[in-house]
């Protein structure tokens, strides 16, 4: 087959999530470049489409890639709302879609589609392990806080499930209007509730603001701050001192001590002049998944059933540790407990090994 493999990248290249879109693209391209820029012996053509992280445009953008550009694989998106819109078209068209970030649980559970893979995480997967960690650290009463949107609530639900199962109590769940970053009144509320710890999910600018305000309010000393890894991911420099000591759980840390990661980090730094983050790894693993899958098929993508089958059975020695896929095409991976020390995510322990997510609704 002489034609190039067409990869449709439906990622945000403008707006709030730009950094994520770029990191994923970088990681993906790095993986493929390492294979000489080829997949299964075929050239690769990238079609980058700005998803603007705008869900209302998602179906038409997806349709453009699938029906217009006729891509072989769609890679995207970052944003869960966009994912919903994409998956709708993925279902109709059967296009193979690899989600390199969006964490909505339904994607690999209720919405169950054989042609959809995820190389990232689900909200639940990254927060569930923290429940036990928090309890083990001796916290009994916890306040949770997040934005009032689907992703945030899914994340808190995972934490709560584990934490209450252990016997802890959620004294208050605070939902902040999305995407407000005005946290002062909530911090005052937290101070007056005097919980043992706070668990939080915010991301991007919101994460930075929250952690900074939390520290500036002097709460960090008296009430430990726990969070999903996205609170601090990609935000280390922006956080500065305020981030020191914050504990989070995530399926990756840039300091992970394994060969794959060390090789990845230095290759990434070489290529792009900056440290990789989780998003870059997710992009990278997406690339590696394609590399492995297509080399097994010698680049033959004509038989879709076979292709799906091969991809589903890919197993990677990823920078994040061992990575394989569940029946619902969701990653089975380690989740690490990380603490920020000297501006780096140091791995404290493996919070949960080879964690598989609940996917009763999707058994393929």
């Amino acid at each position, binding site marked *: 087959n002489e034609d190039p493999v067409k990869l449709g990248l439906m990622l945000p290249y403008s707006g709030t999530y730009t950094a994520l879109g770029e990191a994923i693209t970088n990681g993906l391209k790095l993986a493929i470049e390492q294979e000489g820029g080829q997949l299964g012996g075929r050239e690769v053509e990238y079609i980058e489409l700005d998803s603007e992280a705008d*869900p209302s445009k998602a179906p038409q953008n997806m349709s453009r890639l699938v029906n217009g550009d006729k891509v072989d694989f769609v890679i995207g998106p970052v944003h*869960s709302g966009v994912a919903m819109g994409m998956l709708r078209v993925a279902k109709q068209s059967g296009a193979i879609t690899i989600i390199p970030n969006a964490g909505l649980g339904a994607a690999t559970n209720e919405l169950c589609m054989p042609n959809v893979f995820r190389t990232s995480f689900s909200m639940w997967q990254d927060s569930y392990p923290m429940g036990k960690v928090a309890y083990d650290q001796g916290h009994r009463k916890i306040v949770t806080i997040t934005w009032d949107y689907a992703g945030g609530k899914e994340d808190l639900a995972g934490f709560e499930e584990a934490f209450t199962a252990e016997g802890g109590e959620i004294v208050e769940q605070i939902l902040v209007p999305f995407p407000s970053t005005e946290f002062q009144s909530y911090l005052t509320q937290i101070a007056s509730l005097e919980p043992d710890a706070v668990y939080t999910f915010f991301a991007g600018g919101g994460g930075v603001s929250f952690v900074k305000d939390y520290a500036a309010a002097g709460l960090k000393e008296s009430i430990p701050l726990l969070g999903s890894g996205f609170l601090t991911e990609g935000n280390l420099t922006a956080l500065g001192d305020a981030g020191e000591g914050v504990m989070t759980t995530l399926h990756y840390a840039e300091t992970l001590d394994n060969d794959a990661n060390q090789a990845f980090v230095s290759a990434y730094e070489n290529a792009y002049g900056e440290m990789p983050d989780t998003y870059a790894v997710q992009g990278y693993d997406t690339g590696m998944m394609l590399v492995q899958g297509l080399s097994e098929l010698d680049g033959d993508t004509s038989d879709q059933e076979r292709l799906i089958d091969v991809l589903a059975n890919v197993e990677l020695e990823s920078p994040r540790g061992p990575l394989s896929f569940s029946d619902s095409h969701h990653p089975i991976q380690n989740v690490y407990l990380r603490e920020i020390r000297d501006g780096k995510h140091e791995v404290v322990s493996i919070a949960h090994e080879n964690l598989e997510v609940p996917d009763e609704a999707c058994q393929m």
Partner: protein
Amino acid sequence: MLHRYPKRVAIIMLILTALVAAFPLWGEAVFGTQANFMLEKLTLMLILALFAMSLDLLVGIVGLVSLGHALFFGLGAYTLALASPDFSPASMWWMLPLVMGVSASIGLFIGVLVIRTKGIFFIMTTLAFGQMLYYFISTSQFAGGTDGVFIMFRPSLAIGERTLVDLDNPYSFFYFCLGMLLIGYFFLRWLTRSYFGQVLDGIHDNEHRMQALGYATSGYKLIAFVIAGVMAAIAGMLAAMQYGFANPAQLGWHTSGEVLMMLILGGMGTIFGPILGAFAYEILLFIYEHATTHWPILMGLTIIAAVLVLPRGIAGLIIAPPWQRKRNNDDAPAAKKEQASEAVQSTTPRKEG
């Protein structure tokens, strides 16, 4: 304000309509394997044209600039999404009235409140109501929050067991949307030329005087607001049908801004202009997005340029083409003339009483 245009407007619009309607005949020859995708895109443009046209009634005809019109678009989408059964298609026969009913009643409710304000305040209040519904939907569990909801099956249009139009077929759906657009167009055209439309013109020009003459201006404005809302909701419903998906972003203010842009690009107050505007906007967007990931700069500059040099939009170009204007023009450049005559108007007080 006369709503009478030169013959060529009708001719151009007829040709364009015929061209669009005949897409199935030539689409494949031009776009090859991409024809299906282009059909889909075209369908979307028809839907957006209906949406933009509905806004024209408010902005172009009554002179009420709404920055919350997407509210109705999203409302139509969500009504369909939430009222559709999970495992079987809904019937168009009651889905359409439902969408119209819901949007009309919400339009009435919001209308009563916003109609009291004017000018900038109307812009801002509609914006606020739009955002209110946006936040309401995006924090509501039943509506799927920020993730939105799926519509599993497209509604069907059938009498008894017999399918009238198979809406699942992209071609039928395309013609269905085209039909809706044409109905909307002729309805609005009739409306603006009717007595009702003249009253709206009067309100646009000098509402106070209309009141002094004895017109219940709020009533007329309210009706126009509701009609515009219902039409936008139908467009929203069609959009949701096309992709089987409803999302809060459909009712955010960015969507309202975009549809305003289509309106101005096409030429407001003309009814046919917004149709052209919707097509032009979508085509430009498509080209820019293809060209670069920095497309917002191109789009932004296009918008700015359109506002500065094409205040009457594409419709203005057709109604009074530049070369025609030149013929009876002596020497002064067009821009200067316009400025001059406007200067005079504004020396006389703008607002009375």
